C-alpha cells in the first residue's frame, strides 16, 4: 500500500477546497475547454497573453476531482507572468514527472508543481493532473476543438 498522503498532500487538498484564480477572464485572448469523459471532469482555461508572449493573466473554471482542481489552481498560480515558451518547457517536465514510464525526475525547477509527484504511482489519475495542461496548450495553440484526455 502506497502512502495515500503522498498523493493527497496538504497543498493539493487546500487548492482543491479553495481554488485560486477561478472564474472568467474579461481580457482573455486565448481559451479552451477540456473534458475527461472517464470521470466527467471539465475545465476551461482563460488566458491573456501579451504581444511579448508573456502570460499576463490566467484563470480557470470547471469541476472535477481534487487532483484536477488543484492541478488547475496551482498551474494558474505558477504560470502567471511566464513566457509562453517557458510554459511549454514546464509542461514537458511536469508530464515527465507524473507519467509512469521512464525515470523518476526530481521535480526540480517545477517549484510548487512538484507537489504532484505522487501522481505517477496512480496511473488512472495521471489524466486528472494533466487535463488542465492539455487544455492550456490547446488554448495557446489557438485550436478551437475541445480537448479530451482519452
Amino acid at each position: 500500500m502506497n502512502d495515500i498522503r503522498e498523493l493527497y498532500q496538504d497543498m493539493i487538498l487546500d487548492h482543491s477546497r479553495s481554488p485560486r484564480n477561478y472564474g472568467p477572464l474579461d481580457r482573455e485572448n486565448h481559451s479552451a475547454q477540456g473534458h475527461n469523459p472517464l470521470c466527467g471532469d471539465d475545465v476551461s482555461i482563460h488566458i491573456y497573453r501579451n504581444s511579448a508572449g508573456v502570460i499576463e493573466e490566467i484563470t480557470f473554471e470547471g469541476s472535477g476531482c481534487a487532483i484536477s482542481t488543484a492541478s488547475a489552481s496551482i498551474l494558474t498560480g505558477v504560470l502567471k507572468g511566464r513566457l509562453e515558451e517557458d510554459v511549454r518547457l514546464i509542461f514537458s517536465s511536469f508530464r515527465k514527472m507524473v507519467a509512469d514510464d521512464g525515470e523518476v525526475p526530481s521535480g526540480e525547477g517545477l517549484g510548487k508543481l512538484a507537489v504532484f509527484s505522487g501522481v505517477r504511482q496512480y496511473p488512472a489519475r495521471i489524466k486528472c493532473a494533466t487535463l488542465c495542461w492539455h487544455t492550456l496548450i490547446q488554448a495557446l495553440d489557438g485550436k478551437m476543438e475541445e480537448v479530451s484526455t482519452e
Partner: protein
Amino acid sequence: MSRRSPTGESRVPFADLAEVRSQFPCLQQQIHGKQLIYLDSAATSQKPSQVIEAVDSYYREYCSNVHRGVHTLSERATSRYEGVRPKVAVLINAPDPHSVIFTRSTTEGINLVARTIGRSRVGEGDEVLISAMEHHANIVPWQMLCEEQGAILRVIPCDENGDLILNDLGSLITDRTKVVSVGYVSNAVGTRHDVKKIISAARTRGAITLIDAAQAISHIPVDVEDLGCDFLAFSGHKMYGPTGIGVLWGRKELLDQMSPWQGGGDMIRTVSFERTTYADTPWKFEAGTPNIAGVIGLGAAVDFLNDVGFETIQEHESQLVAEAMARLDQVEGLSIIGRPSHRISVISFILDGIHPHDAGTIIDQHSVAIRAGHHCAMPLMKHFGVPATIRASFAVYNTHDEIEALTSAIESVKAVFR
C-alpha cells in the same frame, strides 16, 4: 441452497459460500498487500474455474472452426458451440433454441435490433421510447436511429428515488411508438423496474419491445415468456462468463422476418454476384467466425448459475444489499443516490465534499475495488445532480465481512479529506 437446475436435474450442492468463493481464482489475491475485495461485479463479474477451464479446453483440446468442417475437431467444436443455444434458451425460458443469437455483448445486441427491425419499423415522425435510467448502450443506438430516420426519442421519466414514473405510460406510448426499449435493472442505482407493465402497455399499441437484461441476468430468473417482450439482450461477462460474448434473444417469428445485419460467411445460404440468399435464424445474424471460445465459456457460466441456483443467489445477494444499505446509511457525510422500491445488487453513493474519483483511489488503496464514475448513465447523473457516484455492486461470491471493509475504507477517505 437451491439444488435444482431449471431443467429439473438435481445438482451437486455447494457446501457453502466459502466453497463458491474458492471457485474464483481471481478473488484469491492480494492488492496492496491485502486480500482483494471485489465490489465491481456490475462492471464485470469474476469468472469461476469452470468457465476459465471451458475456454481453455477449447483451445487445448478441440480448437477448430465451427460449422464448415467434416473433420473430428470441427465436429466437436460445432456440437459444443451449438449445444450452448439450448442451455441459454432454458436459462431465459425461451421456447426455441434457434431464437438465441450470439453477439459480442448487450451493446451489440441492441445495435442489431436498432439497425435491422428498428430501421424498417421506425419512420419519420415515429417514436422510440426508452427511460431516463438507461445505460448509454440503450440510449445511443436509438438516438442514432432516430436521427437517421427523423424519428423522436421519448423518455420515461424517473423520480427522486430512482423509480420510473409509470402512471403516465398511456400518454408516452401512442400509435406513433414503434419501439420501447428499457433496462430490466439499473446499473447505476440498482432499481429493478416493472418491465412487465411497460411491455404490456407497449404491446397493446403494437410497439416492439426490447429488454436490456445486462444487470438482471446473473441476479434474478429471467423469463421471456412471462415478460412477453420481443427481444432481450445481455452480456456473458456480467454473468460469470467470458468477455466478448453476449446474447440477443428474439421472438422467432420476428427474427425470421428480419433482414440480416452484417454480411459474410456463415450467414448465407448461397452467394453469387447476382443474388445472395441468407441462412436461417439464428445463423443469418452471425456473420463470420464467431467467438467460439466465448460461446463455450458462456455455456459453462450458465451451468454455474444453475449449479448455485437463483434461489441461493437472490437470498444471499439481497442479504448483502440489505446489510450494506444499513451500514452505509450510518456513515456520516454519505448520501445514498437512489432509494428504489426494488433494489438489485447495486448501491450508489457520494461523500460530502469529496469527488467520487478521489474516493475511488483511496478506497482502492484499501484493496477494495469499487467503481467511481457516471456508470455510462450520464443523463441519470444529471437527474440526480451529481457528476458521478461511487458504486458498490455485489455478486454471489461477496461476503458480509467485505461490507465492513468497504465502510472502513470509506472512513479513511474521510480522514484524508478531513
